């Protein structure tokens, strides 16, 4: 009744090409942003920030990165965590070796470093397709795991192989308390989400989707596969690199090479599948789902008075993840984002669906 675009006329091309063409959507998004920026910092507890919101936001950023590559360009990657690791270690080395550098520049540079590595490992995608490529990206995963564990320069010759970071300092302000960290991450995620959203609406994003839908046909109509695939790898890795740097600096604080292992790569892929391939919004849904589900599983049985051993919970988690993946692929291959779209469509027609 309230959610409908009747009477909202588009008089200019600008108005027609807005990200959110319906006024109610814009209002809703503005409300969400106001809530996230102004209300949440006032009401949330440190636990909520540190265990729920900050990791969720960073995961969402990483999931967007994976989604650009897998969902939009159709190149399966099982090595996403490797690019997060590149971002995290680049940021660490930049901060340690060039302390006077602004953290935002550090973030950008670690993203660029990850993008460079991503392009190197993206080169095989020009010759290898589909499932072969999935296995080829495993090479990135295992090689990077090994590189950061073994080459001591990356960890600044730390004897244990793990690194620890200082709190983030930006323009003389130190982000130490959970709400401050949350706002920092939120601001970066919002800006980069906007970037991603606009990118996939641009000619680059369209080229990616053409390649995804049928690469030979895309080539025939004049899209350069080399350009499209390599930019997809680069941009995806850039997002992953920034997410990795944030994950290391803001969420973990200190980490060891195993923090960015194959399991994380698979999780990121699951976020994209469950959230919705080829949907920026879906990346947020997927990240929320994958991050909150284990926490939920850990706490609910205890709250209900059914104590479960930690190992049982972790096994249950594996089973539920696995079953859900299969369920989603069968029931709704387009993921949670699709359900959201269906809900919106229903709402538009409500209360007179005919």
């Amino acid at each position, binding site marked *: 009744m309230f959610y409908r675009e009747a009477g909202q006329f588009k008089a200019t091309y600008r108005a027609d090409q807005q990200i959110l063409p319906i006024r109610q959507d814009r209002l809703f998004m503005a409300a969400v942003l106001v809530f996230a920026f102004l209300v949440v910092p006032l009401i949330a507890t440190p636990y909520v920030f540190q265990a729920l919101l900050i990791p969720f936001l960073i995961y969402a950023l990483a999931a967007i990165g994976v989604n650009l590559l897998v969902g939009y360009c159709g190149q399966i990657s099982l090595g996403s965590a490797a690019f997060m690791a590149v971002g995290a270690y680049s940021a660490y080395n930049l901060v340690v070796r060039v302390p006077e550098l602004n953290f935002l520049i550090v973030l950008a540079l670690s993203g660029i470093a990850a993008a460079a590595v991503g392009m190197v490992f993206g080169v095989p995608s020009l010759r290898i397709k589909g499932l*072969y490529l999935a296995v080829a990206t495993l090479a990135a995963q295992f090689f990077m795991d090994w590189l950061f564990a073994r080459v001591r320069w990356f960890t600044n010759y730390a004897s244990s192989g793990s690194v620890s970071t200082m709190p983030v300092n930006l323009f003389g302000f130190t982000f130490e308390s959970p709400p401050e960290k949350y706002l920092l991450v939120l601001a970066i995620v919002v800006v980069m989400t906007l970037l991603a959203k606009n990118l996939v609406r641009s000619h680059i994003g369209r080229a990616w989707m053409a390649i995804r839908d049928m690469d030979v046909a895309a080539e025939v109509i004049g899209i350069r596969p080399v350009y499209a695939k390599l930019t997809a790898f680069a941009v995806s890795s850039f997002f992953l690199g920034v997410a990795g740097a944030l994950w290391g600096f803001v969420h973990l604080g200190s980490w060891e090479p195993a923090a960015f292992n194959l399991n994380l790569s698979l999780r990121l892929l699951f976020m994209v599948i469950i959230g919705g391939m080829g949907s920026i919004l879906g990346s947020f849904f997927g990240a929320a789902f994958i991050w909150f589900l284990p926490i939920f599983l850990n706490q609910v049985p205890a709250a209900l008075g059914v104590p479960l051993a930690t190992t049982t919970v972790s096994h249950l988690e594996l089973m539920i993840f696995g079953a859900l993946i299969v369920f989603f692929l069968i029931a709704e291959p387009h993921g949670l984002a699709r359900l959201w779209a269906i809900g919106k469509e229903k709402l538009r027609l409500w209360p007179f669906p005919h």
Partner: protein
Amino acid sequence: MSTKNLPVIILIVLLAIGMALPLLQKDTTPGFYVEVVLGGLMSGVLYSLVAMGFALIFKASGVFNFAQGAMVLFAALSIARIAEHMPLWAALAATVVIMAALAWVIERLVLRPLVNQEAIVLFMATLGVAFFLDGFGQTVWGSDIYKIDLGIAKEPVLILENVFQGGILVNRDDAVAAALAALLVVGLALFFQKTPTGRALRAVADDHQAAQSIGIPLIWVIVWAVAGVVAIVAGTVWGSKLGVQFSLQDVALKALPVVILGGLTSVPGAIVGGLIVGVGEKMAEVFLSPVLVKTFDLAGGGIENWFAYVLALVFLLVRPEGLFGERHIDRV
């Protein structure tokens, strides 16, 4: 010899040169060298065992089965746990039944609803199956380290003492594994060439629609059950050698580069690929690792963790369809 094969030949020649290089080092005795190669071949056989399961399923149904490693772990766990209560042969028989049931369930709940979906969707579904099996196996069978005792003496045997100085050490269970793998290959070859079912499988391999018309559900169950039996053999051999534990899965992941190196659709490819990867990574670890550690001041070797993947990657760059894979032609 056409020019198409030239890059492959060059790559193989380079590999051979790489393999021969350690012999030039002064402190490498021929006996030690042969021992390393043999060790590599043995672990290669183990990779091949897992990889065969992949190749079988891919050949017959076009599904890239990420869950093969999980199936190996699951099979090994059930053998180990059931064998605690009954003799080994009975445990093996029971596990065959379990794996067949598993194949049926997977077909019913996962594959049948996804018929005619894209390969990538099926692949991700098997990712889900892999996660589920990992959790399920450990919930049902427990998550400790278990043993499978095949009754083979553990101590190695010295052979060829008169050819090489000091002889060559060979593990008996490795020899058994190699023999089992050979048996399995012969068995599978007979199954695919001689039995009506096997022939039917080959006939429907590359046409889902044709498969449907003669009743794929059954065919898929059979393929997955056969892959399950392959997983049992792999699980038994692995389990008796390394102990049955969760980390078995990481090792089983190595079967992925093996199959893409050999070509996804080819059982012989899985074997040759396994052997190449096995020997390659063993030699890299033994001979190349120390050099790297010394040159770059690394915090330890362990390049066998990625060597197989990078090797497969390089191979794919030269020959995207793998060694024995079928060349794929895209049409709009």
